[in-house]
């Protein structure tokens, strides 16, 4: 085991329960405990728990925190604030550079006008912290809570029942993409109806000192629901079946939200935000490639980097796998604009061009 890898508070539990571990973004994380396909199908049919403590948490605070945050974020945080007493919205969106290129895709949790939490991809925490430091006015307005915060996800059709049992004060009736404060072991936690699998349930931000206890409490509460631990392997196949983007595959600094099919997270009319001008220019000039979904019609599993051939030119697979629910190869790929749903494309797999079809998401 590599001693320079960071470990989440749940690490000893993963190892004790036979998880196969792998380095990911500098962390020693569980890929799987059983087989990936089993874990995946279990999340779609019952409930699973994921350790996503490697993710980062950056909080912008102080007077005008919401305005400051909103100028960095492509979606509109003003729309997230609900009337007094109602749970606020968690918003998915992008942080862009001046060229409209994606620095990270994030979920943002504005608690109020002076407190906005960004959940950052593990691989981008340093980058985004440095980027924000220069843009929030003064250093004490940006708090990096990553080291002290763990995050657990509970996902699946039985997850709402599990979370309602653990957080009866806030979870029951909480609509999708909302969040609320609760407590666990006497300390505050944030419970959100967010997730990366397309199933019901949620994610919980918990102080690291209580994280393992919370994990164990979830496993105990979930025992009668057959809650199982799920690794990053299944997390990836689950999100891909839904067509969710993964930073580093579908998204990077040379890709704009318009190309990635994320136009829906842009609120151009809300006022200025970093990258807005570049996006307006790109809208005018026209986008030259777009992210599309391909379902294989022949044997073969498309993978990242495989070449795609369409009637309008070539492209490339960003993510691909054998879909555990469909039993077919599925892929996201950047291709030239204009492909219609139902159109045939070919993907080069092990030296042979194999047929797939353009479909609209989700795959499952």
């Amino acid at each position, binding site marked *: 085991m590599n001693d320079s890898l960071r470990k989440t508070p749940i690490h000893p539990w993963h190892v004790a329960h036979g998880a196969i571990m792998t380095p990911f973004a500098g962390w020693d994380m569980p*890929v*799987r405990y059983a*087989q*990936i*396909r*089993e874990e995946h199908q279990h999340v779609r049919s019952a409930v699973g728990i994921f350790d996503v403590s490697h993710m980062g948490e950056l909080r912008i605070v102080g007077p005008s925190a919401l305005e400051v945050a909103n100028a960095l974020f492509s979606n509109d945080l003003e729309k997230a604030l609900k009337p007094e007493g109602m749970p606020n919205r968690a918003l998915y969106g992008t942080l862009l550079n001046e060229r409209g290129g994606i620095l990270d895709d994030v979920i943002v949790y504005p608690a109020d006008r002076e407190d906005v939490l960004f959940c950052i991809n593990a691989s981008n925490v340093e980058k985004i912290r440095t980027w924000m430091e220069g843009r929030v006015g003064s250093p004490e307005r940006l708090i990096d809570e990553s080291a002290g915060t763990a995050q657990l996800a509970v996902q699946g059709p039985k997850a709402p029942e599990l979370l309602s049992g653990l957080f009866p004060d806030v979870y029951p009736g909480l609509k999708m993409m909302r969040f609320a404060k609760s407590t666990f072991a006497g300390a505050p936690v944030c419970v959100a109806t967010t997730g990366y699998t397309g199933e019901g349930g949620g994610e919980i931000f918990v102080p690291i000192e209580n994280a393992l206890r919370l994990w164990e409490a979830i496993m105990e509460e979930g025992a009668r629901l057959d809650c199982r631990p799920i690794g990053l*392997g299944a997390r*990836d*196949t689950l999100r891909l079946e839904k067509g969710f983007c993964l930073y580093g595959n579908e998204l990077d600094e040379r890709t704009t939200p318009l190309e990635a099919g994320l136009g829906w997270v842009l609120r151009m009319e809300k006022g200025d935000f970093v990258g807005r001008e570049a996006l307006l220019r790109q809208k005018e000039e026209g986008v030259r490639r777009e992210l599309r979904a391909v379902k294989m019609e022949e*044997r*073969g*599993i498309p*993978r990242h980097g495989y070449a795609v051939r369409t009637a309008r030119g070539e492209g490339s697979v960003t993510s691909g*796998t*054998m879909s*555990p629910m469909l039993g077919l190869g599925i892929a996201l790929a950047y291709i030239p604009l204009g492909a219609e749903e139902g159109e045939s494309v070919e993907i080069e797999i*092990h030296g042979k061009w194999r047929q797939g079809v353009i479909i609209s998401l989700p795959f499952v």
Partner: protein
Amino acid sequence: MEIREDRNYTRDHEWIRKEGELLVVGITDFAQEQLGEVVYVELPTVGSVLEAGEPFGVVESTKSVSDLYAPIAGEVVEVNAMLVDAPEQVNAAPYEDGWMVKIRPTHNSDELLTANQYREHVRG
């Protein structure tokens, strides 16, 4: 982790067993464990001529793609068609129903390992 005495092995975690004048090839128990659940196998067409050490097929799990390397030069005379619809046989019975190809060798190989040598290779 099982290593059978009745066959030879390669450093790439394949086994080779003599069957009359043919050689049967598959991947080892160690290999299938490392891979995880096999979801796809691609094998050469019958009649293909293989060169020793060259990739001749692919075995894939959900997360990984692994090349299969020809342990010996020869002609492919049979492939295990069951692996098309039941790739998981590679996990369930890597030394039996999970066999992959049968080769009529054209040359000998002095690179094959005995069961003991393979055991050392896996340990080391």
